């Protein structure tokens, strides 16, 4: 086991009520708008045949975005992912390659764990049931070494 280089969000699905305030808070704090589609995480509790089911998509620190970025606009600093808008050409490759679909384009934005935000990540601060938390990702060591 190894610790991933970036802090990531995790959810306690047993607590989540699916209110989506986290998504609203994300877009409000970072872009100044109320719009859940602009969030860099997705939490839903839709009804399935079996009942309501929590679905959670957020950055898990896989760094695929960093690998595919042609201009080295994406990197890791002080344990947080960052996007350097001066280098970014808005090509969208990162968003297209994100396995969780949580990088937004137009304008470009990814989850940087609200680095530097007073009070920590907005989504965590707004969660009314303390279902969300930000912590270090743990990565299983590949069997191939």
């Amino acid at each position, binding site marked *: 086991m190894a610790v991933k280089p970036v802090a990531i969000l995790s959810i306690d699905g047993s607590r989540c*009520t*699916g*209110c*989506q*305030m986290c998504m*609203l*808070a994300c*877009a*409000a*704090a970072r*872009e*100044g*708008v*109320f*719009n*859940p*589609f*602009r969030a860099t995480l997705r939490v839903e*509790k*839709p*009804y*399935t*045949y*079996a*009942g*309501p089911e929590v679905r959670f998509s957020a950055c898990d620190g896989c760094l695929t975005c960093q690998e595919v970025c042609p201009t080295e606009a994406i990197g890791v600093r002080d344990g947080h992912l960052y996007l350097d808008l001066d280098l970014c050409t808005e090509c969208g490759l990162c968003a297209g390659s994100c396995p969780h679909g949580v990088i*937004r*384009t*137009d*304008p470009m934005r990814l989850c940087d764990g609200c680095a530097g935000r007073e009070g920590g990540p907005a989504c965590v*601060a*707004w969660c*009314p*049931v303390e279902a969300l938390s930000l912590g270090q990702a743990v990565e299983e060591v590949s069997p191939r070494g």
Partner: protein
Amino acid sequence: MASRGYRGRPEGGDTYAGKVLRVDLGGMSSWTEPLNRDWARLFFGGKGLGFRYFHDAVPAGTDPLSPGNALIFVTGPLTGTLAPCTGKLGVVTRSPATGTILDCSVGGTVGPQLKYAGYDLVVITGRAPHPVVLVIDDDRVSFREANGVWGRGCHETEFLLRDALGAEFRIISTGPAGENLVPMACLTSELYRQAGRGGVGAVMGSKHLKAVAVRGTGSLAAPDMGRFLEFAHRAMREDLLTDTNLWAYTDGTPMIVGLSQSAGILPTRNFQSGTFAGAEAIGAEAVRSLRVAKKSCFGCGLGCGNFLRAPAVGAAGAGAGAWPAGGSRGEAGAAPGRGGEAGAGPRWPGEGAVEGPEYETLALTGSNCGIGDLGAIIEFNRLCDDLGLDTISTGGVVAFAMELAERDLADLGLRFGDVDSYLRAPVLIARGEGVGRQLGRGVRYLAERYGGKEFAMEVKGLEFPGYEPRGSWGMGLAYATSDRGACHMRAWPVADEAFGSLDPFTGEGKAQLVINGQHQNSIKFSLIFCDFWALSPELMAGFCSVALGREVTADELRLAGERIWNLGRLLNVREGFRREHDYLPARVLEHPLPDGPAAGRVVPPEVFRAMLEEYYRLRGWDEDGVPTPAKLAELGLEGL
């Protein structure tokens, strides 16, 4: 998915979307117009703004089920923002059950989606030449043939439409009951959220409108986002998420079963008694023991929704009878009951776990029908929500029919406590088959046809909700004067009386108590705050100030509450409603409760008369219950 709506911050300087969508189903056309800002300033949104648009769109005397009636979906100024508990959607129309003005509200996500799509209101008139689904996809509005979903339950309709349109769409639909114009038909959204009362589902059915599907990807913004967020976050942490409101999360409304039982006001056997021997079996603990999940509406910090995994229906066995006409699964006659098939997975959308029952359902379809089998109540709840039936009125009419049989006045096949016949009733009512055709027309109709007017528990044709007025006299005045008939959501004096410290057995001070509640809820349901957040007018005003770019005071909101209530009264007065329609049934006025803490009590007729007269006087209405010109001028309603 990528945002296709507005890029960046929207224009406007407040949290309204700024547009109204008009839909003429007769011409299958739609257009938009700017929000009427003068009206928004006086009526804010939700109930009040819906009333104002209704007054403008529909002339007096319009048959509720005719194309001329309007079906208005209306959001609030805070809907879609981070103001907690503001995500409900208001629905305004003229009621086919009562002939009164009618407003309901429904939770879930459809309200905020409408706002993100760019609309504060949708005003729907006309009747489509054939059944349609209205699809609102941001600024693209279209009509889709409803062939595949007409005749199907609301639950399956949602699954089918989301499969066809996309998972981000949120649906509000009418069920088979509404298609068949049953006056107790409701609207369902996200399976278990209902715009319940007064037959709003029948209005939608009469328009050949099966469902509205909405996807909104645009943005809203407050004039100063930093100020808004700081205010809203503090209000959530310091006011919302406190003991005053968190009962909604802990147990939700089922906890009222215990309160009502203790106070002797739990409707039992068609309000023949105020205590129920089986109360514990349908109370909060019993509900909690079956709970598998909690769920919130969009943007709500409370999360009142209880999802239960229902046990098999008791000894009487299953048998909700056949599925709705046309066969929700194409197999009419297949019994969707639960009995004897342990281990089988859910066969119907919505069956895996049932949200609810809420208190009103536990009371009206439980104790009031003499049913103490929680599994049966859950199944009844599921059937009603899927078929699109209001559980309060359905429970009320089933209980009335049970008493008709008990008194040998008529036999509609229903008996107090008999689960089998009880579970067949929703299907028959929704289909309009057999006795269901009569049951669906409500308690007042049955009483006119078979007798029993003295125990017909209704006001203005709307069946009683779950609080026995003989043990909480202010509640009687609240039912009698409610704008849409017997309703617990206009004023809830029971909180201060039977559940609080005020003497429940006096008329003193109750007129003012009811008036205060009606004003508070009028503005609350116009700003669209959920009933379950007991927030002050000052806090509501604070939210308005950070959202609307102008300072709004609590006094302005109190006055708006009074204005909205008076506009509702005007809309009823123009349909002929007067003092004689603000009544209570003889059972409440003349027949003493037999047992419990309120044993021996009635609401004495002279006390009721005195409360009502004081109510009119305090309101500035004449003795026939008509608002005076002076009062209307004071409220800015002159000329309406």
